[in-house]
């Protein structure tokens, strides 16, 4: 027995097994169940175990599916671009312009203040702000910028993306800030000594070295946006759809098998997207 425990292989297996068991039960099993249910048949009030491709057939046969997936990618891409630009700038400012650690920490905490309230509340507070008679429109009108209320501020793709950017920028700031803080400052000095200007240092030194942070932030933002449904529902006034809403509508109407099939397709899509993203940067090497 003692010999067995001394065997490195066995201890290794033992150490990994608690996590493996947790993941197996709470991640792998549910996904397997979803896969199974996606082949079932649904009637009004019951779901019948079966093996048929009907749910997938309907999913891939409907032009709406493609528009909705396209829409989901559109939201993910635009949100990613905005959060990256804002997140990178904020992180850059915090990491390279603020010199004292105390201030860095203080300002970083300031960024997290909005996160003390719930997601939903932060999202919903945009509604009175952006509405037809909301603060934004009345202010703009009193300044004489516009004559009539701007309609596309609320219940539009603009509103959806605005809310996404507001909600998820911090997920971009944190990992980028983290990698930036670990850049050896002497590299920047060396670049400067070698005659590089600010833009060249940014492009050739800082960005390549912050890639892992950018990638981690990207994965956060992309998966969060692609899996979201409530932001899209509220900010578009139920008028736009992404895949999450398709699933939630199906669930609301008791169409679990159809919802499962959509979920599986979404899962595959997100995994493929992340797979492609990871091709660009080897996160493990950089961590």
């Amino acid at each position: 027995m003692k010999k067995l425990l001394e065997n490195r292989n066995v201890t290794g297996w033992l150490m990994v097994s608690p996590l493996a068991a947790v993941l197996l039960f709470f991640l792998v099993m549910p996904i397997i169940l979803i896969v199974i249910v996606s082949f079932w048949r649904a009637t009004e009030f019951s779901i019948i175990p079966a093996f048929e491709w009907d749910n997938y057939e309907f999913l891939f046969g409907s032009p709406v599916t493609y528009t909705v997936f396209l829409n989901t990618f559109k939201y993910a891409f635009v949100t990613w671009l905005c959060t990256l630009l804002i997140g990178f700038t904020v992180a850059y400012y915090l990491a390279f312009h603020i010199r004292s650690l105390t201030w860095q920490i203080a300002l970083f905490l300031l960024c997290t203040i909005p996160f003390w309230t719930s997601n939903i509340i932060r999202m919903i507070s945009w509604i009175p702000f952006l509405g037809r008679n909301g603060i934004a429109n009345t202010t703009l009108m009193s300044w004489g910028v516009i004559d009539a209320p701007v309609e596309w501020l609320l219940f539009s793709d603009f509103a959806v993306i605005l809310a996404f950017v507001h909600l998820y920028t911090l997920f971009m700031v944190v990992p980028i800030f983290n990698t930036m803080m670990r850049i050896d400052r002497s590299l920047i000095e060396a670049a400067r000594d070698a005659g590089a200007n600010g833009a060249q240092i940014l492009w050739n030194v800082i960005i390549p070295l912050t890639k892992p942070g950018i990638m981690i932030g990207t994965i956060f933002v992309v998966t969060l946006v692609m899996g979201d449904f409530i932001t899209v529902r509220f900010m578009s006034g139920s008028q736009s759809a992404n895949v999450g809403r398709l699933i939630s509508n199906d669930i609301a109407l008791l169409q679990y098998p159809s919802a499962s099939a959509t979920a599986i397709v979404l899962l595959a899509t997100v995994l493929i997207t992340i797979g492609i993203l990871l091709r660009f940067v080897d996160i493990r090497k950089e961590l």
Partner: protein
Amino acid sequence: MTKLDTKKGISRRAMLKGAASTAIAAGTTTLGAPMIWAQNIKDITLRQFGTGVSNLNDVADKVKEDLGFTLEMTALDTDSVTQRAATQPNSFDIADIEYFICKKVWAAGNMQAMDTSKIANYDKIAGTFRSGLLTPESTIAQGTAPHTVGFTSGPNGTDFVQEESGWMTLIPTIYNADTLGIRPDLIGRPINNWSELLNPEFKGKASILDISSIGIMDMAMVVESMGEYTYPDKGNMTKEEIDLTLGIFTEAKKNGQFRAFWKSFDESVNLMASGEVVIQSMWSPAITAVKSQGVPCVYQPLEEGYRSWGGGLGISAALSGLELEAAYEYINWYLSGWVGGYLMRQGYYSAVPETSKEFMTADEWGFWYEGKAAQGDILSPTGSKLAGAGEVRDGGSFNDRMGSVVCWNSVMDENQYMVRKWNEFIAA
């Protein structure tokens, strides 16, 4: 629980202490039984869920006061209510659901039939819920009329029967005739037809509810009013009719007719009160809520008539013993008038109008039920002013409103197809 413990105690003591103590102990049980009952009922908690319309905290408070037990309320949107009734029978004791939901979930066997002989006011329940006839000469509207899904064959029935069998699926509590809500101040002209919902004049200022089984009926009313098509039965469309109806609305959506869709009652209130929307499908208390914010809002009667709905209380199949008794007691209390009066003052109709009348002033009864001009201020149950002296209820009396019902919220044979198409409409 207390009761069980006492019994256990008795047998143990009887074994240990002999005849004398047995007699005493036995004496306490028989004599003590009603007391235990009175104590126990206070410990009972009935979990009720339903849509926001009738899940009111005031009702829970009054139950505690009048009956002594606790009623826990959960308000959900219509789809979530259906979902829970069909899939989570152990999560509720009382289901406060609509008749069309009942049609969907009854066959799942999660609810139990109720013995009408235990319902004290059964004979006073409005005809709509029993024979289906408002008055002996009325015709039955299209769709899932409550009486068609109101009765089952026996205590364990999972079917529906068309006659008064003595076993009810739901005990009716509430119903109303729905129409479009408008902001008269922002529209500035009379609105008389359902077709106005798609009038380009209101582009970007209209809304419809995103609950398929109700929304499709509103759509059908609009399509008929536009003269596009006359349905043989709006409550049971064919696939072609569903395609046609949703096609018209998808086009309107793509043209930007709608500002938003709403799913829960409070969303419709916000849309209307903020002026985002000036015409939309709406429910009666939502109008009340908008008005009580001081914003003018009319529940506009339309030439084509009303879309109606009815709701009632059902009991979970899991309920038995003392809790089942408490549930019956609660339902009997519900029909005894206080809640009815409360609901009537919000603009609904009580399924037992006679008892509700006792809990309303003559002026309130005249205004809400008989369609008479108000004598003084008409207040909502929460005390805000809804109408002043001389004002008349939108749509008039009970008979005028319920008499003009042309369809009921319903579940179609092609429901699954409709649901998928509805999903596409929302995503389009």
